[in-house]
């Protein structure tokens, strides 16, 4: 029997959230002052939550591993943020945004959460404009929109190619305002290394001060994790170098179920890999697919010549180009969802049509758009992306088609949460990319920013009071409690153990090996034999890591090698759980493609009879197998159909 209670409110879908808000319990202002909340992570979800909770009167402690909250990786989001404003009069509505998101997620998300997300989307845009976020505007002075993958309306708000940056700086400014008021205390350069539970409830965290190595104990009435995704398990991804799974992984080990870890998003438009030294991959916003056409040559001999630089791609005639997305999916063309676009690119490259020397790239050509709209318009829309590409690849996208290839970008899986965004540990909340709730098996473009800010500004401030209403008589916790001491000791023991190994291989070399195993066995295509082999390889890697890792210097100084070791140790364990989850899910859905489950023409095949559930994993100990709990997904509003973008 499942122990999971999603706590979805009764009533018709469109009324659930307004009914919830009307009836949820509140904490009065005098009591809010007596309550402390820890927020880990200062990206869109964390910063917006910390600022909003502080505005309400709670005492907030905000933690981030960067040197400033403004640097969280939300800042790198380029394309935009969705909202159902229907400013373009093109037929958009809350229902349509909800429907597109559920469908885009391949019917593996919870209806009630997604509907709420679509409902609050409009308030986000209002809020950001009020903060001074300089969204793109039309000549009349009103907000402009662009279209994005998986939708047939233009509902994406943007600030050039730097939307994430502008939204994050908006949330950061709201956070800074509360720091000034004394309602938020900031803890920069801190890595969260453990959770503290007191009598079964989340009451604190253990962090390492990255500047001086001190292990600190922090207590609160509730803990909020907004620590982002775990794409760096693949080593090469579009995530920041420091992005890590450690906070949610430690929560998992303390009893917070981890849901759908196998759902990872491979983004179709990234700059291809070019060399062993490479440390990360760079995304080119999906918005380029609005104006760019994706293709490979039709003839193998042209492919060969292009690879050897004997033929300029611009000299290949239109009829000799295979615009494979337009060919396979005429209705959506270049704007199919990300999982579909990525697999189509991989299919062409696997068939031998890849256009760079490694054979792992396709073209994205802006030529038609430049001819149609002029170079100025393209520069205004994508100038910063084009500059980024130019710096990395040393080619000019205005005259030479860009080369792109899919790369790990976003993780839909994460800590299991109920409708209140609370995990299976009472008092522990999880927001944004770190939780599993809103994107199902595939996230649509411009929805991550929407979810992060929805959770932080408009959902958590309501739902957390439902828990805290019972905590008004709970006195502040002393960090001298044995629970804190014990957790601190655990962290210190692990660090000492890492140093005591004195092995021969660097942390990075282990991370690269892990990434290779993950990409080969749990990447864009997965199958039973490969996953089983992958699990064995990871077990071996884990053993090797704890026997032969080499960490230089000591723990009481600024020590990047130790930071990485802590993170990689957790990634290795996560990798195994991802493979287990992928092995269990014998269907293809969204970003999870099981090669055994496809149609004759290579499209993903879902199995709704057996797998319309959330797979939530419970940790059972170091050497025990995790236990699977299923949350059945009930669809009251939408009918499950095969996604069709043709």
């Amino acid at each position, binding site marked *: 029997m499942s122990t999971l209670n999603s706590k979805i409110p009764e009533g018709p879908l469109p009324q659930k959230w307004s009914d919830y808000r009307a009836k949820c319990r509140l904490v009065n202002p005098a009591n809010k002052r007596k309550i402390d909340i820890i927020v880990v992570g200062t990206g869109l979800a964390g910063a917006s939550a910390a600022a909003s909770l502080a*505005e309400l009167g709670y005492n907030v402690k905000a933690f981030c591993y960067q040197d*400033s909250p403004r640097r969280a990786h939300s800042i790198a989001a380029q394309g935009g943020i969705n909202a159902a404003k229907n400013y373009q009069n093109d037929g958009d509505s809350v229902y349509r945004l909800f429907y597109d998101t559920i469908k885009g997620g391949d019917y593996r998300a919870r209806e009630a959460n997604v509907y709420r997300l679509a409902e609050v989307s409009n308030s986000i845009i209002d809020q950001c404009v009020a903060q001074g976020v300089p969204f793109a*505007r039309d000549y009349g002075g*009103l907000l402009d929109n662009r279209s994005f993958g998986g939708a047939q309306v233009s509902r994406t708000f943007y600030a050039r190619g730097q939307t994430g940056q502008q939204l994050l700086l908006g949330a950061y*400014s*709201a956070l*800074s305002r509360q720091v000034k008021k004394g309602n938020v205390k900031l803890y920069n350069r801190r890595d969260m290394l453990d959770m503290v539970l007191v009598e079964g409830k989340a009451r604190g965290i253990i962090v390492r001060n990255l500047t001086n190595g001190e292990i600190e104990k922090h207590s609160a009435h509730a803990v909020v994790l907004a620590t982002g995704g775990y794409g760096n398990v693949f080593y090469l991804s579009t995530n920041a170098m*420091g992005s890590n799974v450690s906070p949610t992984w430690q929560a998992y080990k303390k009893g917070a179920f981890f849901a759908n870890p196998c759902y990872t998003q491979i983004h179709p438009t990234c700059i291809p890999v070019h060399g062993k030294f490479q440390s990360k991959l760079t995304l080119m916003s999906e918005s380029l697919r609005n104006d760019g056409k994706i293709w490979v040559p039709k003839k193998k001999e042209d492919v060969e010549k292009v690879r050897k630089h004997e033929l300029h791609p611009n000299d290949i005639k239109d009829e000799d180009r295979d615009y494979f997305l337009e060919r396979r999916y005429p209705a959506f063309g270049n704007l199919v969802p990300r999982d579909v676009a990525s697999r189509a690119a991989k299919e062409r490259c696997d068939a031998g049509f890849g256009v760079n020397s490694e054979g792992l790239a396709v073209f994205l050509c802006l030529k038609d758009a430049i001819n149609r709209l002029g170079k100025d318009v393209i520069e205004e829309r994508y100038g910063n992306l084009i500059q*980024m590409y130019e710096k990395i690849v040393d080619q000019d996208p205005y005259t030479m088609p860009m080369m792109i290839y899919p790369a790990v970008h976003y993780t839909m899986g994460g800590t299991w949460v109920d409708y209140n965004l609370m995990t299976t540990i009472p008092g522990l909340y999880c927001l944004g990319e770190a939780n599993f709730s809103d994107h199902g098996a595939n996230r649509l473009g411009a929805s991550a920013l929407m979810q992060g800010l929805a959770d932080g500004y408009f959902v958590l401030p309501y739902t957390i009071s439902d828990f805290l209403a019972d905590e008004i008589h709970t006195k502040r916790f002393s960090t001298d409690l044995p629970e804190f001491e014990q957790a601190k000791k655990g962290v210190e023991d692990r660090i000492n153990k890492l140093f005591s190994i004195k092995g021969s291989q660097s942390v990075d070399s282990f991370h690269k090996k892990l990434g290779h195993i993950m990409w080969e066995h749990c990447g864009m295509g997965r199958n039973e034999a490969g996953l089983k082999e992958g699990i064995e390889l990871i077990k071996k890697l884990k053993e090797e890591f704890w026997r032969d890792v080499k960490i230089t210097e000591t723990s009481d100084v600024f020590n990047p090698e130790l930071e990485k070791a802590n993170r990689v140790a957790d990634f290795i364990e996560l990798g195994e759980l991802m493979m287990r989850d992928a092995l269990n899910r014998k269907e293809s859905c969204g970003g999870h493609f099981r090669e055994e489950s496809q149609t004759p023409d290579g499209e993903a095949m879902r199995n709704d009879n057996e797998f319309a559930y959330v797979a939530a994993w419970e940790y059972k100990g170091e050497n025990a197998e995790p236990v699977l709990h299923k949350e059945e997904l009930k669809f009251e509003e939408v009918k499950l159909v095969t996604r069709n973008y043709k």
Partner: protein
Amino acid sequence: MDLTLKIWRQKDSKSKGKFETYQVTGISPDCSFLEMLDQLNEKLISEQKDPVAFARGDCGVSFDHDCREGICGMCGMFINGRAHGADTGITTCQLHMRRFKDKDTIVVEPWRAKPFPIIKDLVVDRSAFDQIIQAGGYVNVNTGGVPDANCIPIPKPNADEAMDAAACIGCGACVATCKNASAMLFVAAKVSQLALLPQGKVEAKERVQKMVAKMDELGFGSCTNTGACEVECPKSVSISHIARMNREYLCAKLSS
């Protein structure tokens, strides 16, 4: 490519630092500057015999970095006397080795400015920037209860110019390159962005005074219009925003 690196090594904020010389070989021109440093660190770590008893120069070089795509503002170092190296419109992570020649000697230093104390090697503490924003770099609105986003039209040129200013990533190159260690470009970027938008206009006078006062208090120097900040700014934020801030400041002072 084979290169000689002279890198600033410093144990912590209190210790004295010095340059150490390293050789790296077989560097691909396609790799980024930080990936070159990764390779140096990998070499230093693998060669280090006793990982605990180390001399400062033997262990990996510490440097700040995160997104490695030029937007988070975390990386930043002085390379051959230029903030973020000898290329314009980029951060250190966007600098590629093809900008150097084989057998080059490259000198690498941290940002040097009194308000940015060195934490270790090339890592500096830029929390002074956070303090300046906390002094007033925001619009005083709470979550919820705001008008519809399209309720106030904003002329496109104003929105565009506000965006030009808002592109600042807070990396600190402007301070590091300024002979006075002035933070005027950083402060002006925020002041100007919000002064150009009706939402920010309401508190514009108070904001500019508070932010400038904070900047002075933290020990950043004065602006003498040399324009070096604009040249090194990875986001090409123009010094015209400093002019706007000066106007805002003067008007605010005269009317207060």
